[in-house]
């Protein structure tokens, strides 16, 4: 039997199972750190998992494509998980019907401001057309954002990074920001974070309050459609 660690590594690093396990362990560690920090928003489990996996990939010199062969199983679950969001929405259906107008207003405001303010700042700093196209859909859920960015002539990889950053940032600041502003309506807080910071923001909303979570889910879902309309229009205005 050959117990040379280099050979074991060579064998393991070829299979997708290693990177699937690493992804799940990264999240488990992130979740544990989040609990240990008393569920504070700055200890976002996704952020911790991303940092750990990024370090691991850098240290081992693993290309992203190799990693993704394993991680794609988790990536696939993104679809079913999004569909599962329908469940809490269904439970809150009467409350949502009653608040249809406020939902519409909050959705449009957050969506337009997210796209236009990001593009305005990007233009002020003189960023190029490709970067701006990658930035425009950053508040929507990753698969949709990448689709929109590709259509507009952006870089899908850059969009994926910006989407992730937006989600983590939104999830971290939402609670302290709205506490400081004195916005106490869970429906408003949820809808805003779902619209501005997609799935990661929605996950944070569910950690804080079930009503906020349900409204975040609907904000995220509707914003995927709305941004597909707003982003090209705004980009034409800034281009």
């Amino acid at each position, binding site marked *: 039997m050959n117990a040379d660690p280099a050979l074991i590594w060579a064998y393991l690093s070829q299979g997708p199972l290693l990177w699937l396990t690493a992804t799940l362990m990264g999240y488990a560690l992130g979740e544990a750190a989040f609990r240990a920090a008393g569920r504070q928003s700055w200890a976002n489990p996704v952020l911790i998992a991303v940092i750990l996996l990024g370090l691991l990939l850098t240290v081992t010199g693993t290309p992203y494509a190799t990693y993704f062969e394993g991680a794609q199983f988790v990536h696939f679950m993104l679809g079913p998980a999004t569909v599962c969001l329908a469940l809490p929405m269904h439970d809150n259906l009467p409350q949502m019907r*009653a608040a249809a107008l406020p939902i519409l207003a909050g959705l449009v405001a957050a969506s337009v401001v997210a796209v236009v303010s990001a593009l305005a700042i990007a233009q002020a700093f003189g960023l190029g057309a490709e970067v701006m196209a990658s930035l425009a859909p950053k508040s929507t859920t990753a698969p949709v954002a990448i689709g929109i960015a590709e259509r507009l002539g952006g870089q899908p990889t850059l969009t994926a990074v910006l989407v992730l950053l937006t989600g983590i940032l939104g999830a971290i600041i939402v609670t302290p920001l709205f506490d400081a502003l004195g916005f106490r309506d869970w429906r408003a807080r949820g809808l805003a974070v779902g619209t501005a910071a997609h799935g990661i923001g929605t996950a944070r909303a569910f950690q804080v309050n079930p009503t906020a979570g349900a409204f975040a889910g609907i904000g995220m879902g509707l914003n995927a459609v709305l941004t597909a309309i707003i982003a090209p229009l705004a980009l034409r205005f800034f281009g």
Partner: protein
Amino acid sequence: MQGGDRGLVLLVPVLWGLNFPATALMLDHYPPLLAATLRFVLLAIPAILFVPFPQVKLRWLVGTALGLGVMQFSFLYLGMATGMPAGLASLVLQASVPFTILLAAAFLGERLTPLRLAGIGIVAHLPLLREHGLALLVAIVVSTVLALVAGAGAFIFVARLTGQEER
């Protein structure tokens, strides 16, 4: 402060920020020094009518006006007319903060606390924002905060209008 009041406070930096793109637009039509003069003439009319005359020695008033109104804004407008982007101009203008702290320590005997020194250190690195990575980070941070506030604010506003406040 109520939620609405805090929204108004947030409006102040937004309006101040808009002043830079507005300046860039103005410079498309007027020469820089005329543009700066027009800006202050327009401001002077309501100021003379509605703001009481400040109770300070005349030389301090004239000195402030020359320093702030003439020197600072002339150079800002000349710089932007020469081709400085509006976003960068707004950042460079914030360089007055660390200089004020240092000058106040030198001439007025104010104390330099570790917190203030740390603040100067951060501001001193802002020119790095020209590099795209940091510019993108700023775009994401600012736009996410604005989108959150706009979304929740619009929801609460319309909920009040339609009588759908949280029970």
